[in-house]
């Protein structure tokens, strides 16, 4: 599904944000910049749960009468199904309010085009590791409270297995539930291992917690923007060669996934698309 430019409409990217780490919102601004430069929308804005502008303030920033709201989240769950609709006062896929029309798409992480992005990232981080001798891990947080985030990752694992990319093994793994990423060396039978965190931002989890679980770091490091040197791959650990990627959401081509979700929304919910 290709994206048809919408110069009359606004794109609103919704992120979580953080009161502790500004790196948490950097990818959202980068995705917005990328789409702004491509000129696909008349306006592009970001809003956040934990930062400004808030979801209640952002409507005062928008000129357009038609707005596409894309949750820049990795899965459906509490935020995309409860918090965002409540804060933006959305009543379904399309909401008419005070002369404006709001379209609410699915979160980026559940789009099938994420598969290509994950494979591209895995190849970039380990260009010399033959897939046939490599295990690819897609890693999430994992918690008993939200099965949707684990499902989004398991779905991606199945899509990668079916893609013909040729990896010896592809696994889902989690920080706080089985299969645990801390046991990566026991889960992988191959000499090479590639780990891609399925998060939007390089925040506490992907940059600090997972490196400790992998054994790259002895204790959580500083926030990404405060580090002098980016982590160097590969790491020779536990008898294997380990390649660790930054969070998948930091990929600039996430802009394509955002536009794909908009195109999918139109295909699913709109019989006639306004010019």
């Amino acid at each position, binding site marked *: 599904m290709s994206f048809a430019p919408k110069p009359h409409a606004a794109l609103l990217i919704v992120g979580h944000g953080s*009161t502790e780490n500004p790196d948490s919102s950097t990818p959202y601004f980068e995705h917005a910049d990328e789409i702004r430069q491509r000129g696909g929308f008349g306006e592009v*804005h970001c809003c956040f749960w934990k*930062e400004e*502008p808030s979801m209640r*303030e952002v409507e*005062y*920033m928008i000129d357009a009468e038609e707005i596409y709201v894309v949750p820049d989240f990795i899965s459906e769950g509490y935020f995309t199904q409860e918090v965002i609709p409540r804060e933006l006062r959305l009543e379904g896929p399309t909401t008419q309010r005070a002369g404006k029309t709001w379209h609410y798409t699915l979160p980026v992480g559940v789009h099938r085009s994420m598969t290509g992005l994950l494979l591209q990232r895995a190849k970039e981080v380990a260009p010399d590791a033959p897939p046939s001798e490599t295990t690819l891990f897609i890693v999430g947080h994992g918690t008993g409270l939200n099965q949707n985030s684990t499902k989004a990752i398991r779905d991606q694992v199945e899509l990668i297995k079916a893609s013909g990319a040729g990896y010896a093994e592809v696994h889902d793994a989690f920080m706080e539930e089985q299969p645990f990423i801390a046991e990566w060396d026991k889960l992988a039978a191959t000499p090479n291992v590639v780990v891609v965190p399925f998060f939007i931002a390089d925040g506490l989890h992907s940059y600090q917690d997972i490196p400790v679980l992998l054994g790259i770091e002895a204790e959580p490091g500083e926030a990404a923007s405060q580090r002098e040197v980016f982590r160097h791959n590969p790491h020779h650990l536990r008898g294997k060669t380990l390649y660790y990627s930054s969070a998948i959401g930091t990929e600039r081509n996430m802009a394509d996934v955002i536009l794909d979700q908009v195109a999918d929304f139109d295909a699913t919910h709109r019989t006639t698309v306004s010019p």
Partner: protein
Amino acid sequence: MKIAERLAQAVAGGIRQIGQVSIRPHAAGYELRHIEDEGVPAAELESSQDPAAAREISTWAEDAHYRFTKGELSLKRGWLLLLSSADELRQALDLFYPAAVGLWFAQGDGLLEAEHLRPKLARQTGMYRFTRNLSDARAQQLVREVCGPGNCCVKKILWQIDADTPLEDSDASRFDGVVGDVDRRQAVPLLCREACNHFVAEARKAVKGEAK
């Protein structure tokens, strides 16, 4: 009329400041700098022509703490933004003070809807749902402890505890959203239309404290 066009009109009509940012129009566009750098030669400031630079400038305070609320009175000095259009001016100001320009226009149009604290807390879910148990007395105290220039936030509070309960008089409730001793007609005030999520997080801590 679009927000950027209205902003250009407002600057042409004499607007020169928002928060801690000074706005100067000139033939080639607009020049932004810290209000305390008004008299500093441009050559001594770090200049950029990219409106997106406003995010980096406004992310860290001078003492290197993270400014997650942009109404904080802690914008660092030493920078200069040279912008070529009203669209770029608007983009930069929306990064320095998110939504502030649009909120000000909406207020002028009579279209700004403030939300009082009670409905804000009542709609919270998850870990914040207990904030609805905050007492009025503690809420009034929190405004004095969290809001206003004394606590580094320079927004004008538009909300009350509820429709019948105004905020008690304090430096925080009295602040008009304009920094410094300047002609109020030349400044865009920073407006707080509902308690921010930082306030809600503090309310959660206060409720847990009250429960103990």
